[in-house]
């Protein structure tokens, strides 16, 4: 779980960076979904 939290934090930071560049926001479940898919990859 702490590995997943570390992946989740990094994914959130990368999503935030992409969102800021486009002036949009990510919902929390979307960031969690991208993190879960990344973890599985």
């Amino acid at each position, binding site marked *: 779980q702490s590995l997943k939290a570390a*992946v989740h934090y990094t994914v959130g930071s990368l999503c935030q960076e992409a969102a800021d560049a486009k002036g*949009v926001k990510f919902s929390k479940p979307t960031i969690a979904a991208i993190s879960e898919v990344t973890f599985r*990859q």
Partner: protein
Amino acid sequence: PSFRKELVNKLLYLHFKDDKCKVSPDALQLMVEMLKIFVQEAASRAIRQAQAEDQDKVDIEQFEKVLPQLLLDF
């Protein structure tokens, strides 16, 4: 932001069946880069879908729409 090498290293060793398996520094660096590109691609495609729907918030629905093709591209 990017994935810390030690984190990716830990993820890789967690999944190896054979614990004698080693990861070279180059392979680890490539894996860090690949994961970063994967997340950036997922985020960008989901953002594009939200913008196409005139949404300024990216919901799980927009990510689900792009997910099948994203997984086939990696």
